[in-house]
């Protein structure tokens, strides 16, 4: 029984290694179109210097690396935050997410962020427009406090006009009480 267990562990390790090598293979094959394997070999030296060829350590051009960085920044900037009913208070989780956004904003120049405030549809339209505004502003003020320049931020309230999900239950309402973040270069 014990031996069987060990065999299983070793088998798993082998499989994991295999998967890892599969990954690295995948990465090699994700070179830009037109770049052949032999080209990559010839440019071996350049990789170390990280200059000249335009390829970084990860085998990407500066442009691609920037694009990836941007993609990552965008996905971090796009993460929503949630609110309680009739509340525009930032909870612990929301503050954590906003801290991340502030870091990204400060390390990525040229990005602007539109903060959208949204509400669930249980309230009434006009009050919800104001509540959505307060939700967007709460995030705005927190980001400014963390050192993001106000010129890079703007807010808009959609009230209850754009629910993320449809449904008359707490799960749907909770998802709809949110700030969305639209980043643009």
């Amino acid at each position, binding site marked *: 029984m014990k031996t069987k267990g060990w065999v299983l562990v070793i088998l798993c390790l082998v499989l994991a290694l295999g998967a890892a090598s599969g990954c690295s293979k995948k990465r090699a094959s994700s070179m830009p179109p037109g770049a052949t394997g032999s080209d990559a070999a010839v440019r071996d030296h350049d990789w170390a210097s990280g200059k000249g060829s335009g390829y970084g350590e990860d085998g990407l051009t500066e442009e691609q690396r920037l694009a990836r960085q941007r993609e990552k920044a965008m996905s971090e900037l796009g993460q929503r935050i949630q609110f309680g009913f009739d509340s525009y208070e930032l909870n612990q989780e929301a503050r954590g997410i906003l801290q991340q956004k502030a870091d990204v904003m400060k390390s990525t120049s040229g990005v602007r962020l539109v903060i959208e405030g949204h509400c669930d549809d249980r309230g*009434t*339209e*006009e009050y919800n*427009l*104001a509540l959505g505004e307060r939700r967007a*502003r709460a995030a705005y003020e927190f980001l400014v406090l963390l050192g993001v320049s106000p010129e890079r931020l703007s807010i808009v309230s959609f009230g209850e*006009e754009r629910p993320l999900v449809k449904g008359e239950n707490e799960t749907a309402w909770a998802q709809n009480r949110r700030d969305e973040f639209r980043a643009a270069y």
Partner: protein
Amino acid sequence: MKIKTVLFALLFVALLAGNASAQGLTVDIHGPGQRKVNLVMLPPRGLSAAAVPGMAKNFEELVRTDLRFMPFLNLMPASAVPGGDPSKGVTAEDINFRPLQLARIDLTMTTGWDGNRLEARVYETFSGRRVVGKAYDDLTDAALPDVADRFCSLLMEALTGKKGFFTSPIAFVRRVGEAKELFTVLPQGRALTQITSLGGFNLGPDWSKDGNQIVFTHLNQERHSLGVWDRRTGEARLYREGLGNTVISPAFTPEGDIAVTLNKTGSADIYMLDKGFRPKGTIASSGFIDVSPAFDSTGRNMAFTSGRFGGPQIFVLNRDTGEVKRVTFVGGYNTSPTLSPDSRYVVFARQTPNGHRIFIIELATGQERQISFGPGNDEDPAFGPEGYYVAFSSNRNGQYRIYLTTRHGDEPILVPTGPGDATSPAWNTAAGGE
């Protein structure tokens, strides 16, 4: 001496009685409750041996539809009159009022047709007094709805002293694809017109007192703008400068100024705008949410929603003294106030465990009463020009629609608004009054 006094007293009583009968039947729509008045429409007649034209039936149907909107009228079938049609003609001398009185019918309507000329009358059966009498020449099928509305408006005015109901349009928001646009419609569902095609969300319409303009919030991807639609040009213009990104619940004062919620300093406050649509200064601010201003016909009182004590509650500002009075104390979520034109009442939506419901508060006494009962959500109440009808939106039948009830909470009547969710009714009160 004694006989003289008795005679004098008798004369006085007789004078009083005469006065009372001259005043005739009226309906006190502002009374604590309202009595039901029975009305019968006698079959249409041809005048001077003319045949009854086809449009007589249409006219009768149109009037019947309009009369449904007067909850104090009980429309009786002609068969309720013992012995059948008690008339030989359309005027009082040709009507035998006895069987009508026996059937407890208070009002009798007659219509007489001579080709495309119509004579329409309503009599009080007790006294034989004519309540309304009108003649309309050169009628066409297309003109019939308008004539029916005008006649019923006169009847409404004669009975209640209030005018304007059937001819005062309601502005509202309707979903059009992904967008929300503004429409107008007469309360009985006629003259449905789309007045904006701006795309985005166009929300919270409010009429100017003269009925020539509507202000609203326009919302696109980036920001809010102030929308101003003009009836005379049929065009809507958007204003942004100096307003910031947040423009919520604009409302006209009777003087033609605009109050609107903006966020200039970190909180949503109610500002007054100058004639160039730029903010002059705040009229209500608390550091929290202040929204949904609504004025009475004098403009001296403004109801609004404020989150200054936590959840949203209704407040009334006296603009002369600056005093702000909280008027709702029950429930944790009271929004969307509207003042009656005479400033006696405020209607608003309260969130209850079963959804939003419409409530009315008499401001002088603080006495409160529920006037809508769902199911679903009843929201956005708006007083009619006469301060009697209350329009509101409700999803009681699945989709949001506009309904009418009265201050007394009468059975709601659906306002036909076509396909797409309909919300935020706002009544043009220009034609209202005594």
